[in-house]
């Protein structure tokens, strides 16, 4: 990961919007993801959080607007809400396949390191047979393959036990402390309170608040999520 100055924009959404037919999933939205920042994306179900994260990750094309990358083309890791992996391949084979697709040189070393990092039990079982928690650990490990500067997490702790949650948040801290940035969508107010430096509130596809956590607590937007 390249050394970056705090507050340097790593990813910028410029008027990004997404429509599905006549339905507007995300209204035109501007958002900067800055180095050293942990941004919580909150809002009711269907508010557009997953859509915004997928657009920022490059997994979904916006119907309007664009996503700009900061200097040095920061690498982006994405943990989608539903695990994105091949069910008939084992956890290890999934990691090997995506590591090769990423063009990583030391594939066995990288895979071993990530398996240890997420503490994935039974790495040689087909992914479809893993528990929901272990599938989510694999999902997270896959997002870390490229050693990301920006980590985009879509409700990452939903299937994790308390120990794994702690492990995940320490990973988040590592990314942020190295000059990266983390954006996570969540429905858990405790997670926002303990881990978010800034908060973005989405409601019905519209960004209704963006600012530091302290401001968020005092803003009317906090009522939406409360």
């Amino acid at each position, binding site marked *: 990961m390249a050394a970056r100055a705090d507050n340097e924009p790593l990813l910028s959404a410029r008027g990004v919007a997404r429509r599905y037919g006549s339905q507007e999933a995300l209204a035109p939205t501007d958002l900067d993801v800055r180095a050293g920042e942990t941004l919580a994306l909150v809002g009711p179900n269907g508010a557009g959080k997953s859509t915004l994260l997928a657009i920022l990750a*490059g997994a979904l094309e916006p119907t309007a607007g664009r996503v700009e990358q900061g200097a040095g083309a920061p690498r982006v890791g994405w943990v989608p809400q*539903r695990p994105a992996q091949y069910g*008939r391949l084992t956890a290890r084979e999934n990691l090997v396949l995506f590591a090769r697709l990423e063009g990583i040189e030391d594939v066995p070393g990288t895979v071993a390191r990530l398996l240890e990092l997420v503490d994935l039990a039974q790495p040689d079982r087909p992914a479809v047979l893993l528990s929901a928690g272990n599938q989510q650990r694999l999902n997270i490990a896959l997002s870390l393959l490229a050693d990301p500067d920006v980590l985009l997490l879509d409700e990452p702790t939903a299937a994790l036990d308390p120990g794994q949650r702690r492990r995940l948040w320490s990973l988040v801290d590592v990314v942020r402390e190295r000059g990266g940035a983390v954006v996570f969508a969540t429905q858990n107010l405790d997670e926002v309170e303990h881990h978010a430096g800034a908060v973005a509130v989405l409601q019905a596809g519209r960004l209704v608040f963006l600012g530091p956590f302290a401001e968020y607590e005092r803003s009317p937007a906090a009522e939406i999520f409360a």
Partner: protein
Amino acid sequence: MRAVRLLLLKDLRTLSRAPALVVALVLYPLLIALLVGLVARFAADRPRVGFVDRDQIPETLVVGGQRFDVNGVIEQVETEVDLVRMTDGEASEALRTGDTVATIIVPRGFVSRLRSLVRRPELVLRITRGGLAGRVERQTEALVYNLNRRLQDAYIDANLEYLRLIREGGRGTFLGNDFDIVGLEGAQRILAELEGQGDPAARAQVEELQTFVREALLALGQSGETLRATANPITLRLDDEGRRSWLLSAQVQAYALALTIALLCILVAAAGIAAERDENVLGRLTRGLVRLGELVAEKIVLVALVAVGLGMILALALGAAIELAGSTSFASWGRVPLLAGGLAIAGAAFGAFGVLLGTLARETRAAALVAILVALPVVLLGLLPEVSVAPAAWLSDAFPFAHAVRLFESTLYDADPWATIGRELAWLAGLTAAFGGAARLGMRRLLA
């Protein structure tokens, strides 16, 4: 290409981990071959035809002094249809209920007309409208033709007997009346006796008659061959060279191959591309790891490999069956590598079509259903004969099935297949490009 190779290996590994699917993929072509064989056997089955003899035809019939077996000739038709003797009432009921497809009726007076040589006897054919009607009609025409030929032979023999009487003289019968004639040879003898008598005028007349008798005898000596030649200007000689059964014919093999890989390739391709979406990996893949076009190409290559594997199993099974049948040797062992290439191209075309369907259906189960629903009419379009339903044939050209059939048929059995192979390969390559391009555009639906 690296991404395509990695995803291809992933898919092959995934396939290998679904043993039930692999068994189904291997058994499916064999099942198709069996079903095609059964259908072919049904097609070759003799249709049931009622036979009503109102005139009580005797076992042997004398016509023009010649004996011949009318029943024997009629029953010759049984090589092609199942002739069932019935009463009038039974025949009508059987025709009404569909138990028979036609009735051949010998009307009263048939035999007497035949013997009289004055009025033409008739056979009556009652036929239903349906798929087999034309076949029964042709068989009945063949029966009448055979009867006419036998009668013709009898009449020629009778005529030749009259000619012999004219030439040699003797006792004969015509229309039931007996007669004696002296004949040309007898006349020649009498004229020779008259020639020795003194009257010069009578001798000159006798010599004139002798000349006529000589020339008549010469001419009548050649009349037998001439009569037969004018009655049957061309005869067909059938040389049996161990013909292949319908089940093992080149056309059936080509259809079995094309049908098998059409259904399987379209299904595998459609389900395969939709499965990428179902596993939620499309977003992860298309974030710079794999281009959409590469994903389409990978599925096409995968399906082409499946087509080669399954097609070779089926072709080798059919080849072995031909060898075991022993009627003739499988002439195509040397063409197996060429067939493998054809299977790959045809598989790619079916694969591209299947990927397009998968992108439209989006979900694996829906894709599998759509693949079956669309593949069947495409196959049936290709089965329609070009000469009878021209628009269907034109439409069929827009899909890979008909081209695959022609490619396989030519590859396996044409003595000089290159022109057909070149044309059909070009069609299949073009269809692969067209459907592949459309599938690439359709991929955006999967990402949405």
